[in-house]
């Protein structure tokens, strides 16, 4: 009891930037679990993430970083996996360990689809978001050839998702899990681009799945901070 109280006294600390998709991934997970935490903004514009004090907690200069007492973690998907495991008995059942029929199989499916997001989905979607939100800043135009190439790849990945979602409501089964959560931040940005209509809009089950997972209260809290402003003039 005393140990639990001592643990509760030291809050989780998350270092990151609100517009970073990777930070948003962890924020969403924390909110799905209903956890209290301290958010420490990292000043990207002064290059804080590339300089020694920050590098001592994140050697590659990456955000987000989670501090839980003496434990320091970076890599957003490692952080979400840690939170989901540590708090598996509270909040949303993100690892499907409380699944009534066959928890081991359900948990394994979560692992498969979190790998799919990381290895197949992310490499296709990240460059598109980059082109629209970052590369086209300051008067440049997005590289349409790069966008088209990656949109085609993303389409092929989402064909697999469309078929999967005919068999189950969510990627790892009939309940929302970490596998679905990991997709949310980048897709949120993609949906603000011209590519969204064909890539997501043209796939009815993917579209329905997106509307569901992006409408969850935990993510709506996070979306408020996600302003990656494209050129306004």
């Amino acid at each position, binding site marked *: 009891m005393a140990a639990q109280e001592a643990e509760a006294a030291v809050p989780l600390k998350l270092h990151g*930037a*609100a*517009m*970073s*998709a*990777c930070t948003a991934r962890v924020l969403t997970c924390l909110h799905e679990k209903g956890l209290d935490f301290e*958010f420490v*903004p990292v000043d*990207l*514009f*002064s*290059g*804080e*993430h*590339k*300089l020694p004090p920050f590098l001592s907690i994140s050697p*590659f*200069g*990456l*955000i987000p970083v989670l501090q839980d007492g003496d434990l320091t973690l970076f890599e*957003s998907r490692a952080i979400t996996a840690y939170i989901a495991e540590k708090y598996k008995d509270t909040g949303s059942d993100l690892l499907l360990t409380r699944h009534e029929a066959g928890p081991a199989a359900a948990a394994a499916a979560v692992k498969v689809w979190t790998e799919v997001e990381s290895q197949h989905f992310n490499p296709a979607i*990240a*460059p598109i*978001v*980059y082109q629209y939100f*970052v*590369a086209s*800043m*300051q008067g440049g135009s997005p590289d349409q050839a790069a966008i088209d190439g990656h949109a085609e790849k993303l389409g092929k990945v989402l064909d697999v998702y469309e078929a999967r979602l005919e068999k189950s409501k969510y990627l790892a089964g009939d309940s929302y899990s970490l596998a679905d959560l990991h997709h949310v931040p*980048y897709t949120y940005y993609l949906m603000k681009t011209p590519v969204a209509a064909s890539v997501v809009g043209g796939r009815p089950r993917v579209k329905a799945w997106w509307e569901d997972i992006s409408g969850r209260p935990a993510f709506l809290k996070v979306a408020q*901070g996600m*302003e*990656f*402003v*494209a*050129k*306004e*003039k």
Partner: protein
Amino acid sequence: CRAQPFGSVPVIQDGDYTLYESRAIIRYYSEKYKSQGTDLLGKTIEERGLVEQWLEVESQNFHPPIYNLTLHVMFASVLGFPADELLIRESEEKLGKVLDVYEERLSKSKYLAGDFFSLADLSHLPFTQYLVGPIGKEYMIRSRKHVSAWWDDISSRPSWKKVLQL
């Protein structure tokens, strides 16, 4: 916390007057307050011409490669985007050639437009600060004797130190 990383910032509002584009803004203020503080535009039409020349050089030649370095070295990976290693190498090479031109110029005059600190030098401060700090390429400045001395001079001005404390 709201962040506006890129987009049309900075913007100023001077009464009812609105202006964007940082180089337009600094020219506006330099002109408007010509009679106070440092004379950033030179004293004669010829000096003004040189200030404008080197402001163009900064904008057309210095800025594009250093901006690419900033985007890819400082921001890409931290925001979860792939950094373009080829572009980084090419940008460093281009920037090096620009700095060679500066080295030649600064061996003949203390500042870019002449022997007076001007808007042309000032406009180099922010991105060069990134270059020697978080981008980790201070050697590009230090390996060029006159550029190095010029950088130490302009970056130690009280006005720049105030900005760094913000």
